[in-house]
């Protein structure tokens, strides 16, 4: 009798990650495969845990802000904004209009930068390297704007409680205008490379399909939810920080596959550009920082503030006990919740499609592990 070997096994368990380039960080996926077909995927996370929530319990509200840039480091501006809006809600701090407008402008530029990084790496995973280089070219322009205004490119520490650190530097509005004018032509270039390309279509169409009802059940938000046709956007439904003053559309997909999520994100970049253009047209003048007490002691209570980050609903649940430090901060990270759908999406697909599906969820491990 012949001993059964690994070749006779019906199911083989393999590891993908944590040091796999397409897992976008340190995600480990245990795949049960049958030949090339994936039967099951189990995500193992926690390799990048730094305890940001716990750190916040030992810092006062001003000191907490830089740490939130480091949760989702690709969208540091949105992350900081979410926490700051929560604290402002707690302490009832009024933000001047100019500061609000600049905040929205920078958050939308951050959304474009984040989606560009997503498109670049997603295309690179699937095999289109040129897109990667072109996207990083435009992202670089945005990072230069961040550097000029905030003083840092990635972990920006963008906003302060009550407003901004400093007003716009000279020449900044012109630089943003130059970017928004050029940007649609650049998006056309990406689309020329991808949207009708047969390889791209084969690799993305019908891959990782999720229906609208199921997406809601899983608690998805952001592009993974909108790709399935649900027009859920916190900016529209619960406007915060002045979003009600601007016109923009919420793009939705139809089939809920990887290709639709790609189209949704491309359209979102253009919509973000539209918001930035509106801000440039009616940027008010005035102070950039409201009145903030030197010792901030919000009244005891529980507060939730949610913003629409590039990856979905980014919530901050802050509990105050009336002292200068938060009693507890809980982040609702959008990609932590979209990652749990991975197992459902990859079943029955090939191993190469797992890479595409991880890419389309646009995960950031800094945010998942916190």
């Amino acid at each position, binding site marked *: 009798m012949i001993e059964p070997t690994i070749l006779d096994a019906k199911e083989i368990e393999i590891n993908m990650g944590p040091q796999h380039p397409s897992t976008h960080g340190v995600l480990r996926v245990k795949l049960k495969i049958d030949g090339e077909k994936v039967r099951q995927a189990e995500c193992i996370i926690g390799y990048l845990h730094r305890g940001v929530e716990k750190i916040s319990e030992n810092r006062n509200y001003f000191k907490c802000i830089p*740490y939130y840039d480091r949760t989702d480091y690709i969208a540091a501006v949105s992350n900081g904004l979410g926490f700051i809006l929560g604290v402002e809600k707690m302490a009832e701090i009024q933000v001047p209009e100019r500061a609000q407008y600049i905040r929205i402008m920078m958050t939308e530029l951050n959304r474009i930068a984040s989606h560009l990084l997503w498109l670049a790496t997603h295309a690179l995973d699937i095999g289109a390297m040129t897109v990667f280089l072109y996207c990083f070219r435009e992202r670089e322009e945005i990072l230069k704007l961040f550097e000029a205004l905030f003083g840092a490119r990635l972990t920006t*520490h963008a906003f302060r409680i009550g407003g901004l650190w400093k007003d716009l530097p000279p020449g900044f509005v012109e630089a943003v205008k130059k970017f928004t004018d050029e940007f649609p032509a650049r998006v056309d270039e990406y689309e020329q490379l991808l949207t009708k390309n047969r390889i791209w279509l084969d690799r993305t169409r019908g891959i990782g399909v999720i229906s609208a009802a199921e997406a809601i059940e899983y608690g998805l938000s952001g592009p993974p939810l909108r790709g399935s046709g649900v027009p859920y956007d916190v900016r529209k439904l619960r406007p915060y920080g002045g979003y009600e003053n601007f016109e923009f559309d919420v793009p939705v997909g139809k089939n809920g596959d990887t290709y639709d999520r790609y189209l949704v994100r491309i359209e979102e970049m253009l919509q973000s550009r539209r918001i930035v253009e509106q801000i440039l047209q009616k940027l008010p003048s005035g102070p950039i920082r409201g009145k903030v007490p030197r010792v901030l002691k919000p009244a005891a209570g529980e507060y939730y503030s949610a913003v629409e980050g590039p990856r979905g609903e980014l919530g901050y649940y802050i509990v105050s006990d009336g002292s200068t430090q938060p009693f507890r901060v809980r982040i609702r990270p959008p990609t932590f919740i979209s990652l749990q759908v991975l197992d459902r999406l990859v079943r029955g697909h090939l191993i190469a499609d797992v890479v595409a599906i991880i890419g389309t969820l646009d995960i950031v491990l800094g945010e998942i592990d916190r």
Partner: protein
Amino acid sequence: MVNFLKRVFFVDVLAGLALTLKYTFHRVYTEQYPTEKPKLAERYRGAPRLNNDPETGETLCIACDLCAQVCPEDLIVVGSERDPDTRKKVLTTYTFDTSRCLFCGLCQEICPTNAIELTQDFELATYSRRNMVWDRTRLEQGWDRIDYGADRETASGRESSRYERKTG
């Protein structure tokens, strides 16, 4: 029919190739980093510096300890003693641990005299951990860091750099 012909003649792929071909004749975007130093924004938060009064040469720091209190990582230590004649606090030591610094800029924001400042200097790599803790002299004068050969001729009075010695 049109779609079929487009598919047969690889129109979708050729469109992409035409775009990449166009960029062959385009200006190169790459920055030649070690040889060409990038020009950073004025507000960039890099290496810390403790400023002296340009006229008298004395330190601007009044040892108020605000930077140490506002630092999220508690990495600034301000040492001071009280001058018996003037009854004022005088700065004695100042250490800044760059290995733990978040470069959030809260210290320079709160400083009432613009003494502590984060500069555009961003090359902070060093060979030992001990070198990352900056004392007062280094904060005031900058540090003799590794020169990667960008402007070797113009570097005033600097002997061959450590990098050169390492690579022979």
